[in-house]
């Protein structure tokens, strides 16, 4: 009896989780089939009066939307790759190597995690302007790649990798580069997926920075494109919802592909 109760409880909570996580997405996808005046209508109605495909078809026929998806996707992949490289190398050095000024550098790196964006928005814009980076993919990919938070995460993870693994390699005369590439990188698959996914999403959902730095319509980012449906007085709600749904899909698919890795082989706890 208690067993059955436990089962009901577990699956009940599981169902609750699924509903809570999926409901807004489902609502958004369905709202994409609504007329613009119907989306925020109350009393609340989940399904549209009439299912309209025109929001979706209009978007899918819009070259600039598809291009923005493509450009953002390419940028996000580059961004994730660059930030993984930069941050994993740094994290490894902080976790395993011994060097001068280590402590102070560590504090500096981790402190950057807490800088409110608005504090340095203007001054970083000045920097990228002076570097001539405006209106390039580089201005979206490079400035945010180094991340204190990711270094923190990966270092915590590397601290948990058993020392015994490298000791053998060290006896064979392997240096830090060999140990990093041969031992740590292969072990990092799961952690890399978690960190990479976070970077990818941050890039995908970025809005303010692209608006600041990108004026070339060829390089428009997807959130920048979607913002054209919003205004103070009369938003194109149906298109906004359909567009947001289409923009969420590639990310969800990507996540489905990588979901196994996310759980497999992640060791972060520092256990032996």
């Amino acid at each position: 009896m208690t067993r059955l109760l436990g089962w009901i409880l577990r699956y009940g909570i599981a169902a609750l989780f699924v509903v809570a996580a999926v409901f807004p997405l489902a609502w958004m996808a369905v709202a994409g089939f609504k007329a613009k005046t119907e989306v925020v209508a109350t009393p609340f109605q989940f399904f549209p009066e009439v299912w309209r495909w025109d929001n979706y078809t209009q978007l899918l026929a819009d070259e600039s939307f598809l291009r923005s998806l493509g450009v953002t996707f390419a940028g996000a992949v580059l961004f994730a790759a660059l930030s993984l490289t930069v941050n994993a190398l740094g994290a490894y050095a902080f976790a395993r190597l011994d060097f001068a000024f280590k402590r102070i550098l560590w504090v500096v790196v981790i402190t950057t995690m807490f800088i409110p964006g608005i504090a340095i928005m203007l001054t970083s814009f000045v920097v990228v302007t002076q570097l001539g980076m405006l209106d390039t993919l580089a201005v979206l990919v490079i400035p945010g790649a180094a991340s204190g938070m990711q270094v923190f995460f990966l270092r915590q993870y590397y601290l948990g990798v058993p020392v015994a693994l490298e000791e053998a390699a060290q006896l064979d005369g392997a240096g830090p580069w060999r140990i990093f590439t041969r031992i740590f990188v292969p072990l990092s698959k799961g952690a890399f997926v978690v960190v990479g996914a976070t970077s990818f999403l941050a890039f995908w959902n970025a809005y303010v920075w692209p608006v600041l730095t990108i004026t070339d319509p060829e390089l428009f980012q997807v959130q920048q494109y979607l913002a054209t449906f919003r205004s103070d007085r009369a938003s194109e709600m149906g298109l906004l919802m359909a567009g947001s749904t289409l923009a969420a899909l590639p990310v969800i698919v990507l996540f489905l592909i990588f979901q196994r890795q996310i759980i497999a082989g992640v060791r972060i706890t520092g256990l032996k």
Partner: protein
Amino acid sequence: MAVTTLRAPARDTRSRGRPAGRGRRRETKAALIMLAPLLILLGIFVIWPLLHAVYISFYTWSFYEAPVFVGLENYLTVLTDQEFVDSVVRGLAFTAMVVPAQVAVAFLFANLVKSVSRKTAAVLKVTIYIPAVISEVIAAIVFSLIYAYRGGILNWFLGLLGREDTAWLGETSTALPAVAVPAIWIGMGVASLIMLAGLLDIPEAYYECASLDGAGPWTKMFKITLPLMKNIILFLLVTGFAASLQFLVLPLIMTQGGPVDSTTLPNLFIFRHFTNDLYIGYSIAAALLLFAVLGAVSALIFRLVRSEKAVDG
């Protein structure tokens, strides 16, 4: 700064029995090359702009007039502004709602995934991530509809249970918690997966041994699970704190900071000054003070949660 309590990793983790001199020099060289991309990028795009911002904060600056040096005046103005102080306190109250809830939800989720069938677990793992995919703007719109006074889903549902309609976003007492819910929701996915990864990392054998000793589920949780997850919980607390003290879009769209400033979180407060002030010194100084608050509280969290072993390997 208070962050010095974040300890650098101890030196002796792995250098036992190795000649120090040459090895260390070689390591320093390798370390510098490995760190170079990180430090260069941070230096150019984060630290230099930060120093520049600090410099600007000592001036009255509109970019068009000659800047006037005012020393600490901007900071004094901010610190003596009751509204700023209130917004920071409110922000801390907000994080006190969001962060523990997020960690608790993540913990519940991770334990749940462990205890259900493989298939259900797979479904859970995929769906939990979805909130992270949806942009904050959309989340704010959806939750505004859920909270709508007339015809909102929440009031409709409570109406079935015979409750009167509540103005969730219109009452000073409920508005902040009402904004906290989507904040928890947005961060739930990533936190849950990280927590799950940590949980799966604990060897089954520990629990089996404990069972043989007659330990119940609570004992296992407090004696095995929680202590071994300290590192993860620390990470989630610190990053969750840093993220939730900086929410801007949610209150901006859902309540405009009202009613009576009950949802004016620090970043919204700064944002308002940033957009409306003719000079930028005030908002930059306020943002830098918020930075100090974030750093100080995070250092405190490190100190509270830290155990030598967990953090330093």
